[in-house]
């Protein structure tokens, strides 16, 4: 392989990964946000972006497991240049309002037709938490499916969001994502 081709491939990989630096998550106990531990069963690649830790196997545009690691009061879910206009997390939000915040934020980040369904209670890291399903279209019109679990703990928002292209990548790693979620243990 020529040096020029190698450089081109590295640049393409960085662009595809949003220029984030990825590291290997080995299948063993890992502490998340100093609040809980998870036990992944397969190797994932992980990158950090603000309060989010993003795990992926095939690439973040195809499917990813994203951990929101303790968002503070009055902060937007995603960082952006126009974040002053974005909806913000409030520490007294109900699960219904957090689902609305996720829908609003994913939409503001560029997705279309964002819908949350099936909001229900689910214990998360020993807290009264919630789960809901998510469906949206990417900027290029591809359908994505996902689900979100989370809770507010110590006045901060913790979420785990799994999403992927609906036709192949969402089901491909869905059970791996569910295993990670089932392994959540309060530290």
């Amino acid at each position, binding site marked *: 392989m020529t040096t020029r081709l190698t450089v081109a491939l590295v640049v393409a990989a960085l662009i595809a990964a949003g220029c984030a630096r990825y590291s290997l998550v080995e299948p063993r106990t890992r502490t998340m946000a100093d609040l809980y531990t998870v036990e992944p069963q397969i190797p994932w690649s992980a990158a950090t972006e603000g309060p989010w830790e993003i795990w992926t196997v095939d690439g973040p545009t195809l499917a990813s497991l994203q951990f929101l690691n303790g968002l503070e009061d009055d902060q937007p879910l995603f960082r952006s240049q126009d974040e002053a206009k974005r909806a913000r997390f409030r520490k007294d939000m109900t699960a219904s*309002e957090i689902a609305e915040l996720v829908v609003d934020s994913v939409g503001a980040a560029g997705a279309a037709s964002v819908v949350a369904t099936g909001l229900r209670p689910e214990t998360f890291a020993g807290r009264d938490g919630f789960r809901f399903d998510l469906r949206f279209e990417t900027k290029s019109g591809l359908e994505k499916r996902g689900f979100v679990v989370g809770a507010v703990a110590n006045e901060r928002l913790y979420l785990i969001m799994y999403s992927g292209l609906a036709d192949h990548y969402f089901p491909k790693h869905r059970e791996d994502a569910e295993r990670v979620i089932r392994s959540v243990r309060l530290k």
Partner: protein
Amino acid sequence: MHFFKGEMYRLRNQAGDEASAIEAYERALGRTGAPAETNRALALLFLRRGEQERARAAFERYLAEASEAEDRAMIRAYLEKLR
């Protein structure tokens, strides 16, 4: 129309918006054809304001109107905490 006005105020959540949203939702409920979600939205606002009894009553009206609502398990969990 009043329901959507209420949604706009509730989601924007700037100074004075809570009261404007409640007024819009109550206007919506005063007319026929208000969506069941009007009572849920009202309940969420009452919760935010610490008006637990009014929140409970509005959640119960929501479940009475939309007994098969897909978020009914979550609403029942809220009601458990409010009892």
